[in-house]
């Protein structure tokens, strides 16, 4: 009886194990399938003669206008690439000091109680749906900023960038905090023992030691910012202008896909162009994440590898 029960237990466990394995593999397969789908839908731009009458690879870089619904459609990617870069940079300028500062405080200065409060609360910020952040930026923040600074355009890259900053602060904070925490205690003890103040220890010893990990956190945040859609769709004004001015409206690559894919005629040049934008975004975020991951891995072996 008891033997039977044990065997049954083993069978059950191996079943569960198998199930989990399958789900893990399915998740990986799903990522690959999505990638191949995007790739397949953007390939006609290169190979399909019918589609090429409307859109070719060269057309993406001709001129500076994104005007797909027109008697003479123009598909220049420059304005939307510029838009994505502009908004991402503004978001980073806003979010990086805040997030790294918070991470440094909570890992080096805050007491244990406070730390246990700060970390979950900042990470809670990640739980705010981006559409809510976007709505807030669209209705409240835009008017607020405009009234203070007297800007011509209510919805502009700065407005969207700040809102986007809120969206990526938790990601950067969380990863940077992990990196700072990974610095062995002995580093701090040595610095303090040599007479450094806690501030000197934090900024001149711990932060430089964790720098690869902190840069990884920043890059990770950057990847999130490039791919974030709803906030920019709502708060940036979506005018496809090719301009460096952060106070003008701007349109990002993600917002372009989100706004236009709903209507586009299936199989048209415009349709494939949107998938090409998707492919570009996928590649960019993939590379950014890869670098970020490599940096973090490098940090770990730098801090602990020598011990072996």
């Amino acid at each position, binding site marked *: 009886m008891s033997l039977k029960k044990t065997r049954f237990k083993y069978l059950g466990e191996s079943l569960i194990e198998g199930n989990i394995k399958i789900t893990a593999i399915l998740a990986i397969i799903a990522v690959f399938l999505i990638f191949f789908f995007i790739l397949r839908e953007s390939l006609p731009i290169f190979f399909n003669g019918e589609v090429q009458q409307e859109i070719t690879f060269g057309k993406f870089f001709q001129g500076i206008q994104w005007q797909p*619904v027109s008697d003479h459609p123009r598909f220049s990617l420059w304005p939307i690439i510029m838009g994505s870069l502009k908004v991402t940079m503004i978001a980073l300028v806003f979010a990086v000091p805040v997030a790294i500062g918070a991470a440094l405080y909570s890992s080096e200065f805050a007491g244990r109680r406070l730390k246990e409060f700060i970390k979950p609360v900042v990470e809670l910020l990640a739980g705010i749906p981006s559409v809510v952040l976007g709505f807030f930026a669209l209705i409240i923040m835009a008017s607020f900023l405009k009234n203070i600074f007297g800007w011509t355009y209510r919805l502009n890259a700065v407005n969207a960038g700040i809102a986007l900053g809120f969206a990526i602060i938790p990601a950067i904070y969380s990863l940077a905090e992990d990196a700072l925490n990974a610095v062995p205690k002995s580093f701090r003890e040595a610095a303090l023992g040599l007479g450094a103040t806690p501030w000197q220890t934090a900024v001149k010893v711990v932060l430089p030691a964790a720098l690869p990990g902190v840069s990884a956190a920043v890059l990770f945040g950057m990847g999130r910012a490039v791919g974030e859609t709803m906030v920019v*769709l709502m708060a940036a004004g979506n005018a496809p202008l090719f301009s460096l001015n952060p106070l003008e409206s701007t349109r990002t690559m993600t917002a372009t896909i989100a706004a236009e894919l709903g209507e586009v005629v299936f199989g048209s040049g415009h349709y494939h162009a949107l998938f090409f934008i998707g492919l570009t975004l996928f590649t960019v975020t993939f590379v950014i994440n890869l670098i970020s991951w490599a940096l973090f891995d490098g940090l770990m072996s730098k801090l602990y590898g020598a011990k072996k």
Partner: protein
Amino acid sequence: MKLKTIMFWASLALVVIMACNFVMAGKAITLKGSDTLLMLGQRWAELYMQKNPGVVIQVTGGGSGVGIAALINGSTDICQASRSMKDSERKKIRERYFNLGSEIPVAKDGVTLYLNEKNQISELTLDQIKDVYTGKTTNWSQLGGPDAKIIVYGRENSSGTYAFFREAAMKNADYTSSMQSLPGTSAVVNAVAKDKYGVGFGGAAYAKGVKEVAIKTAKGSFKPTAETVKSGQYPLSRNLYWYVRGKPSGEIKKLVDWVLSPEGQEVVKTVGYFTVK
């Protein structure tokens, strides 16, 4: 052990209920498409379901193009559209269902140009509107207003209103790149209401807290009202449509008949659009 049994039956019951919901949803009449018609469609659905218990109507937006695509691939029964179908779309319907589908005008709308209430301008000609939206006119002083930049708001190119406005007001010229495209008419209205130098366009029903511009034609200037839209004096009048595959029949026919009845058309008026008849 007992708790487990209860849990088992409870979860089984939950699954059964969910399955029932799916089956019920399968029987529902679905309406999908134009965001301009969304508000009206919902009001119709509410009233109709109240009067006919047992009928379930689901209304979703997404844009006219989305609705037409859904009609073509069979995922909606009725498509709400703020523009008539393009030839390419009609062709697809014919290829799949061997008929042209039915086009039913269910309401009329006057696409309205919105200005901020503080703006002193109250009438414009179609040519002036076109120049603003193509980017030829960029300052209010060129239209007799103060010396300030015109902030141009519009819709995304997936919107039926975008297409209609481009055709009817701009004679198919391209929108200026500096037009800010906002998701939804209410976003446009909200932006213009907050922006002293803003200008936007959208359905007449949404014009709350903004000024409606009268359009100056050779015959006089007209605001979008019931008479001017119905008579066509207001130059930016359009029909709002329902599309069905084939001829409406059964429950769908009953719904269509009710929508076109005086009672259904009364709803059109309360929402802020204009009746077809």
